[in-house]
């Protein structure tokens, strides 16, 4: 029996791996992933404030201070570290417009026209209220856009106004600058011997987990679908009966799941190798990346383990739900029921990640359909062996289903097959 299983596994594996689609997907998916990251970086730059903004400073005290804040600070409000950053945000230009309470209405009229004609991006009106309560007018063509820039301007203005208010109270604004301190949480695990790695690169670790999470998610859909198509192909080809005349149906199903799963693992192995290659010191130095990202081995192991666990569960479901039907469309209708759990996991992962030991994560990791993914987030291996049960039930449905042609079976009929011993 084991020998036959291996023969089926081999055939299924080769059938997958010999297609062009397999190799295209294997190398295209990481390429697309990198492209998305690249686009993100480019888009992040586009968030920098730019354009001409007129400043009507009725108080006569805030303009210089505001410009100074803009010059000395980056968009995040922290002191700029290097020249490169300042060159970038210089695309924002403040223009001083002098006004008094009497000339203001006329100036407003002219500025409104300039904004509408897009000669100006926006204009600010700073009055006594700005110094007293921090209120300032911002007028632009649309109130919906440029919210990042608005936040930045508000930040610079806050600091400028604070300094002026300190000056009024007889405090040297330089003291404020000197006294101000930004708190930073040094996050590490509570252990007597603290390692340098833990807690470092937290943002990076989250990003890696999220990427791996969605890789598992995508793979479960993709390879589960491959199992379904394989089952339907054999059934529609009518070859299945030839095979089950010498191989047990459950062996055939298991062989198909294993063979296709091996193709999936090969893909994972290639991706992992690529990831390791990319993060070797030599390559990192070559690319000029400073803070070298490193995949923790435990994460990689969990990644593979949870792909396997999840794959067995979903692949057997796909096989069972495909076997009774003749077309992919018919099978898809039913498979959507368990698949919705997968989607649930994909939409709640963030909460599980934020609180890995919380109630939500606990519940989702107990539901067999969501556990492979959420468990991966929790990285606490206590997976109930439910996939084994799924496999055996799927085997029964599969065994009956593959020989049924014609009429579409009803759900109660399929459940009856699942209960039957033979």
């Amino acid at each position, binding site marked *: *029996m084991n*020998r*036959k299983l291996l*023969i*089926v596994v081999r*055939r299924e594996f080769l*059938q997958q791996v010999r297609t062009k689609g397999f190799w295209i997907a294997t190398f295209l998916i990481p390429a697309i992933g990198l492209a998305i990251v690249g686009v993100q970086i480019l888009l992040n730059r586009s968030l920098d404030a730019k354009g001409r903004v007129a400043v009507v400073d009725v108080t006569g005290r805030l303009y210089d201070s505001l410009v100074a804040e803009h010059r000395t600070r980056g968009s995040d409000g922290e002191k700029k570290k290097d020249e490169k950053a300042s060159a970038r945000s210089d695309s924002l230009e403040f223009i001083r417009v002098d006004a008094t309470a009497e000339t203001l209405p006329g100036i407003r009229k002219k500025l409104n026209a300039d904004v509408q004609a897009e000669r100006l991006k926006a204009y600010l009106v700073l009055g006594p209220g700005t110094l007293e309560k921090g209120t300032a007018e911002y007028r632009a063509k649309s109130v919906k856009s440029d919210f990042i820039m608005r936040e930045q301007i508000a930040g610079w203005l806050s600091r400028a106004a604070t300094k002026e208010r300190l000056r009024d109270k007889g405090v040297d604004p330089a003291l404020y600058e000197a006294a101000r301190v930004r708190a930073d949480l040094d996050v590490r695990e509570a252990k007597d011997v603290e390692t340098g790695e833990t807690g470092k690169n937290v943002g990076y670790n989250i990003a890696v987990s999220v990427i791996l999470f969605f890789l598992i998610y995508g793979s479960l859909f993709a390879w589960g679908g491959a199992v379904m198509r394989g089952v339907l*192909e*054999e059934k529609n*080809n*009518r*070859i*299945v*009966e*030839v*095979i*089950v*005349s*010498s*191989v*047990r149906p459950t062996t055939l199903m298991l062989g198909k799941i294993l063979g296709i799963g091996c193709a999936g693992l090969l893909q994972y192995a290639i991706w992992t190798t690529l990831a390791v290659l990319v993060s070797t010191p030599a390559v990192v130095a070559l690319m000029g990346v400073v803070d070298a990202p490193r995949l923790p081995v435990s994460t990689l192991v969990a990644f593979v383990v949870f792909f396997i666990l999840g794959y067995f569960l979903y692949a057997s479901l796909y096989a069972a739900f495909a076997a009774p039907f003749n077309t992919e469309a018919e099978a898809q209708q039913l498979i959507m029921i368990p698949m919705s759990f997968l989607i649930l996991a994909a939409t709640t992962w963030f909460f599980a990640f934020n609180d890995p030991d919380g109630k939500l994560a606990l519940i989702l990791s107990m539901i067999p359909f969501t556990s492979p993914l959420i468990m991966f987030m929790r990285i606490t291996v206590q997976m109930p062996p439910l996939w084994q049960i799924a496999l055996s039930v799927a085997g029964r449905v599969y065994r009956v289903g593959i*020989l049924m*042609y014609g009429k579409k079976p009803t759900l109660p009929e399929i459940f009856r097959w699942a209960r039957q011993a*033979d």
Partner: protein
Amino acid sequence: MNAIELQGVVKRFGKFTAVDRLDLAIPKGVTFGLIGPNGAGKTTTLRMIMNITKPDEGTITVLGQPMGEALQQRIGYLPEERGLYRKMKVVDQLLFFAAIKGVDRETALKRLSPWIDSMDLRPWLHKKTEELSKGMQQKVQFLGTIVHDPEILILDEPFAGLDPINVILVKDFFTEFKRQGKTVVFSTHVLEQAERLCERIGLLYRSKKLLDGTMREIKNAYRDRVPLPPPVEPEPELEKIFIKVVQESGLAAPTAEELR
């Protein structure tokens, strides 16, 4: 010894009884025809003999042993719903069939070689199955059925959908197997085929066996009870005429493309 024996075999699908208390004995070395209209229970019976589905009641004995997985390796089975992997090369396909029957590569190729030549399959061995004509695919299916040199051959409606050339081919198969002393069991709803090819038949109708025995016994038993056909002048068969015409035409033998 009987090659196949069924005793009190019952198979139900829900409320429907597909095979009802079937007793059947097929001696070794005979060609046995299971006849009856569509839906009589022929396919279900053959599937049970083949251990693809299990009977709800009764016992099935093959070559003196209760039917089980090990015995599957000694039977060649060609289901009515036959197919091939479309994306696989012909030779890989045949070797896959051989492998799941426990036959290694060399033995399989050696055994099939004469057949591959007589069927003009050699040029197609490294083509994908989907490139083959239907007739060619049927040849591959037949080879898949005999690659493990089975002692018993079970064929479900082997003539369904065959063109005349392939019908002759299948008949050649039967003759060859008979010569080797093997048992051939096939189902058909075309009575003329059964009459011409079988030594024994069994008649299934509405899930029940109504009749079985050797062709001679049955004909003798019903000699006085059914009207005899009028005596006919012997005349050449159309099949023989077809072959003669083709041979005398001086044209090349029909190719797979033409039979597509």
